[in-house]
């Protein structure tokens, strides 16, 4: 007992030294308010976790990717080789591709939370604008990234990109700036460099975003009530985030073992290939392009205007209240924007390889705008007064369950760990017999369980005194 005690204090001393010397002692004093513990406040953090995963798996893939077209589409062959023949290549590529999709999805959800709860209110306008810039950079990086696979989808994406650039004013000049001569031998290395470069810009934007959040603190509750501090950031909330990150990584591993990442048909000159569909986040724009109106108007001008209104919203929105039902302009416009995006996405998704009649598209978008505009106006017709008194939740508190769980927390954590270790053991057996799919599946499930074990142990260790 004594030895263990002295060891722990040594570690604790080191951690305290580390926190002090890194200048992070401010974080140990931060208390997380209750509203920020709501799951919808986790989207931004999960999106940045995706960014770290993307950077890590990207660096590994960079060692195996051959950025050349050559005689026989070497880039595609190197991706296929990495996925099929390199041990655990499929899981690295799987995490990269699924994390990219998830990062964009989570950023969008994060944006919706910020927008509809008015978190962009003074003094957080620039945090919001930089967040939108980061979202656009991540979409640009994703576009450049999935062009690197050089399958039929990528080639079409590159062609459409080249065409859009050529339609711009000064298109020829820009074209040679971005694509060189435009042959695949020149496009692929450029796209690889731009993919990483844009991701680097994204990292800078994210750092600025984090810095501003740190400077302005997290936004207070949107309904006007006083924030109620609950648990300290360090170590309680930090360990929750660690457990969540571990569960997410395990989930992505399992996911890419069960559903290996897709790779389309190999593109070779002179062969007819099926028509590829763009990724889902570009589908709404693609549907606009498919109506046959000028591609620059559909692919650039209309989305830019839509986004620009979102960007200037912090300065347009009258901010006597942050409640979505008190902000008629912001809520109505947000509803219409999201509705149009979803409807155009569905329309594009349901008509692969077909043209969309302009009249149908116009009628549909106008109908959606009218319906959602009406809904928005109705929702914001009655002002909601700010909440003054925090609703006391007595009565049905889950204290009995919490007490039982706390009493047994040590063996719940132990059981989860034992399950995880058994699965991990099977995983190591599969790994040694070079059965990499089984190994990844078992490791993935084991890591999910270990994440939960971490969470349980953490609840017992540091959260006990904050529980009912």
């Amino acid at each position, binding site marked *: 007992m004594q030895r263990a005690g002295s060891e722990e204090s040594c570690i604790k001393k080191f951690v305290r030294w580390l926190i002090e010397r890194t200048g992070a002692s401010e974080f140990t004093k931060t208390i997380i308010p209750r509203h920020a513990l709501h*799951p919808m406040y986790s989207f931004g953090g999960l999106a940045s976790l995706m960014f770290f995963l993307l950077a890590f798996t990207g660096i590994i893939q960079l060692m195996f990717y051959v950025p050349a077209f050559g005689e026989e589409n070497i880039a595609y062959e190197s991706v296929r080789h990495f996925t099929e023949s390199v041990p655990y290549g499929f899981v690295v590529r799987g995490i990269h591709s699924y994390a990219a999709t998830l990062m964009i999805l989570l950023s969008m959800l994060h944006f919706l939370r910020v927008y509809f709860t008015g978190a962009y209110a003074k003094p957080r306008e620039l945090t919001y604008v930089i967040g939108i810039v980061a979202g656009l950079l991540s979409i640009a990086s994703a576009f450049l990234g999935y062009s690197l696979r050089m399958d039929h989808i990528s080639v079409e994406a590159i062609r459409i990109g080249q065409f859009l650039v050529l339609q711009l004013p000064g298109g020829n000049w820009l074209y040679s700036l971005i694509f060189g001569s435009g042959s695949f031998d020149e496009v692929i290395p450029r796209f690889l460099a731009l993919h990483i470069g844009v991701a680097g810009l994204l990292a800078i934007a994210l750092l600025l975003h984090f810095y501003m959040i740190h400077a302005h603190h997290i936004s207070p509750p949107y309904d006007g009530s006083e924030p109620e501090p609950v648990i300290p950031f360090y170590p309680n909330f930090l360990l929750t985030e660690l457990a969540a990150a571990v569960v997410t990584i395990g989930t992505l591993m399992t996911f890419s073992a069960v559903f290996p990442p897709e790779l389309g048909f190999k593109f070779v*000159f002179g062969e007819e290939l099926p028509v590829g569909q763009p990724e889902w986040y570009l589908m709404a724009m693609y549907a606009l392009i498919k109506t046959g109106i000028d591609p620059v108007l559909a692919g650039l001008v209309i989305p830019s205007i839509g986004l620009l209104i979102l960007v200037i919203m912090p300065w347009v929105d009258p901010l006597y209240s942050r409640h979505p039902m008190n902000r008629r302009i912001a809520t109505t416009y947000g509803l219409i924007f999201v509705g149009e995006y979803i409807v155009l996405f569905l329309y594009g998704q349901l008509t692969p390889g077909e043209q969309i009649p302009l009249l149908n598209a116009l009628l549909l978008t106008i109908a959606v705008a009218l319906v959602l505009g009406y809904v928005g106006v109705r929702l914001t017709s009655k002002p909601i007064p700010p909440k003054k008194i925090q609703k006391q939740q007595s009565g049905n508190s889950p204290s009995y369950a919490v007490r039982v769980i706390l009493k047994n927390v040590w063996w719940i954590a132990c059981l989860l760990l034992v399950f995880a270790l058994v699965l991990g053991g099977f995983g190591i057996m599969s790994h040694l017999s070079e059965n990499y799919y089984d190994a990844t599946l078992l490791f993935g499930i084991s890591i999910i369980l270990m994440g939960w074990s971490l969470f349980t142990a953490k609840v017992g260790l540091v959260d006990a005194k904050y529980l009912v």
Partner: protein
Amino acid sequence: MNIIRYLLTNLLAAVSLTNLKSLGILLFLVLVVGISTIIYYFYIKSLKPKHNNPDNNERVNNRRNFLVKIFALTLAGIVVQLLLPLLELLRKGTIVTGEISSGQETPPKIANITEIPPDSQISFVLRRNPDGSPGQHPAVLIHLPEDKAALVGKEFVAYSAVCTHLGCIVSYKSEEDALFCPCHAGYFDPTNGKAISGPPKKPLPEVKLRIDENGDIYAEGWV
């Protein structure tokens, strides 16, 4: 171990064979995300600020060292399970190699006239774009059906295969007597390259052809 593998392979086969991939993805996500959200929701509901429940401290304190050990062991397990695959990948991973073209202009011969029956097409690549810059420009050579050939006065025509709408690859459809772009259903006239219907407005650039005495067809450049 064999039983687990048998069950897993059967499960995977069931998911992939019945084309239920998206359903499987949905189920998996609902399971993981749903369970996590429910547990997390109850966890945050039972948090109280400045509560400092002494009973709870007592409930946990006598197992504190045990929990620390579990925590450390779990962390170690996670690190091992992430490092094992990574080290295996970095040690055993190989890279593909292949011919990288030298960038010289390829001989412009496309085919011999005997290789292309009437009313069909063959694809080739030009090393110059229509604006004269170097590149890899897909193009298509068409042997016109007899009635059209009589109308135009030549049997073979060639055009850029890049649709003037958005840059998809067009191909000759004999049943429709037109060059067809599959992306947004654009049609071009095979006799002169002009857009007939669909979103494209501009005509396809035409390729200048030369047929020598052996019947070999050469692409000379753009008209």
